[in-house]
């Protein structure tokens, strides 16, 4: 890649924007995994670079953002979930947030479908949907240089796919990035879970004869892909582990959709 000038990004924070009388168009919801999961912070950073590249008016809540409560709710702790939801909604409503983008399909689902029960009504976009819209509007221009000669496959996150019936957006983005995208034998509404949903991410699996991510890895391996693309922090953890435990680190990578876009744009 040719050498370019590096520019430092100062991520705009709502509290400061608000103090200066600015109201950005989008709230970028970072999410707990996006903020703290080592691997996923890289995705967060890449996505922010894309937002800057596109000149999007956005802000983040920073320390005012708290966990969405998704995992707590699915683990049965409705009380904790609702406290988290109401706390976050109070903050977002005070800033008059209208539109939200997030890289986490779990938070996407919770914010979009579950927060309205507590007066948190927003237009919520998963980053794959947002990137697809930018493509459609011609603001995001992609070519297929960075992934030339690479074979890729997309693993549907349950909460984007079955949970919210979004199968096409990530595929459309990927098809403008790569020539060679293949489907796994179980894909779209038939896709197999990575094993981390419903708060499984945070606990040991129950006794069985196999880990769910290794079962899914068999589908991935069968495609002989170079890159398995995910759009979810939990799927990323599970499949990155899957690649490691199936000893395919030499030949296969797990990357987020946003990382591929940033790579192509040379950000």
């Amino acid at each position, binding site marked *: 890649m040719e050498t*370019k*000038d*590096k*520019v*430092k*990004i100062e*991520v705009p924070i709502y509290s400061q924007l608000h103090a200066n009388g600015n109201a950005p168009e989008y709230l970028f919801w*970072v999410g*707990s995994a996006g*903020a*703290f999961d080592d691997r996923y912070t890289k995705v*967060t950073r890449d996505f*922010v*670079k894309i937002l*800057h590249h596109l000149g999007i008016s956005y802000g983040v809540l*920073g*320390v005012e*953002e*708290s*966990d969405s*409560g998704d*995992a*707590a709710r*699915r*683990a*049965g*702790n*409705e*009380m904790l979930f*609702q406290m*988290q939801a*109401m706390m976050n909604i109070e903050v977002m409503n005070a800033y008059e947030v209208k539109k939200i983008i997030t890289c986490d399909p779990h938070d996407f*689902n919770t914010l979009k*479908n*579950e927060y309205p*029960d507590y007066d948190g009504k927003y237009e919520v976009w998963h980053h794959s949907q947002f990137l697809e819209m930018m493509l459609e509007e011609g603001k995001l221009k992609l070519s297929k240089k960075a992934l030339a000669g690479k074979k890729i496959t997309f693993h549907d996150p*349950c*909460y984007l796919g*079955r*949970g*919210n019936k979004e199968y096409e957006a990530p595929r459309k983005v990927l098809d403008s990035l790569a020539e060679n995208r293949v489907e796994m034998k179980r894909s779209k509404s*038939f*896709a*197999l*879970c990575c*094993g981390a*949903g*419903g708060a499984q*991410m*945070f*606990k040991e*699996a*129950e*006794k*069985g*004869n*196999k880990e*769910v991510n290794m*079962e899914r890895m068999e589908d991935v391996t069968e495609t002989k892909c170079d890159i398995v693309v995910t759009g979810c922090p939990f799927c990323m953890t599970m499949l990155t582990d899957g690649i490691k435990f199936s000893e395919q680190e030499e030949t296969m990578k797990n990357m987020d959709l946003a990382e591929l876009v940033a790579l192509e744009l040379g*950000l």
Partner: protein
Amino acid sequence: MLKQILFSLSLLMTLGIFAYSFKRYYLFFKLTKPFEIKDFGNRFKIMMNVAFGQKKILRKPVVGLIHALVFWGFLVITIGSIEMVIDGLFGTERVLSFLGGFYSFIVASGDIMAAFIALAMLIFLYRRIFGKVKRFDGIEMTHKSHMDANIALSIILFLMISLIGMNTFYVAEKLSSNEAVLGVYPVSESLAGLVTSMSYSGLYIGHEINWWAHILLIFFFANYLPYSKHFHVYSSIPNVLFSRLEPLGQLYNMESITKEVKLMMDPDAAFADPPAEEEGEIEKFGVKDIEDVSWKNYLDSLACTQCGRCTDVCPANITGKKLSPRKIVMNVRSRMDEKGPGLIKNGADFSDGKSLLGDYISPEELWACTTCNACAQECPVNINQPSMIIDMRRYLVMEESSAPTELNNIFQNIENNGAPWQYSQDDRMKWAEDLFTNA
């Protein structure tokens, strides 16, 4: 006249037993919790699509198509059954034939579909008995479950054989007496040649035997269904009509918790809105036993025909965990059969010392769920298994504080520092440090 009397008596008996079963289920439903249903326009569309259009069963194209054809065949054959009831009551013969071309269309399709359904039943029976279809097995699939399936399939097989027999003897009888055949019977007309050598009275008796066999089998089947897994013949269409409309990812809100959390977060509300209204029983959080489930959950359990498509796609089940979504649904129905009568007789305080959660369903099963919704996606009759699992987790966590240790840790972390991990809330922007991009 004797035939009419005999027929009326058997119909009356059928309806009597049916009314008994209906009342039993009505009383069971009265034990369940309310569940709000809105937006019938949308529901109607789903019913046309998923029930009458068989959209979801066709996700397995081959066996799905056979089922869809059986279902559509049943719809046309049912019109013929209604005609038989009228004929039986009033001593008429093929009373709906005045419908002319439409009648011919209906009975001709019924005749062809009957032959197809008979063949389909043989295929289904073969698959169940000799085929190694994995999803027909599992810990919840007892000998009784398998017998039930084979009995139901066999009854349908004999229903179809008697229907074709009836049509065949009817056509032969008319031909031998040079009378007009009412309606068109593509399959039976070709079979009629096999029996035309019989005497007229032989043909008459042949027709009567098949007519009675067919209608009595219908009467028996109608009353067998409420006690069979094949109850889905009745319950699946309403169940699809009452499908959840929300995206699969969304969980139902617990209003009772919302009230409490609002009180906690806004101390003023405690004084403004005294909770004096809700007297009596203290509400239990989540589902422990059968009286805690909603009527929709219970209807789900009655619509389940144990096909196992849910369990077949469950990531936990595939990888050898104890969870089987089908078992959860079947357990709801069996538990009602067990505890329902006692609750009806002795009132809401009745206890038999057992419960759905614990004696039927173990926490280990519940904690294995990834809430991926593959089961709900796959269910041909739109059963929602994850909502039952989450409701029982809610009981375990909020009433018994018995979540797995790791989950208790994330609850604590979320409460204390706003993230499932032990990071400080102040570090939420750390990811943004030293962020450079190429200009």
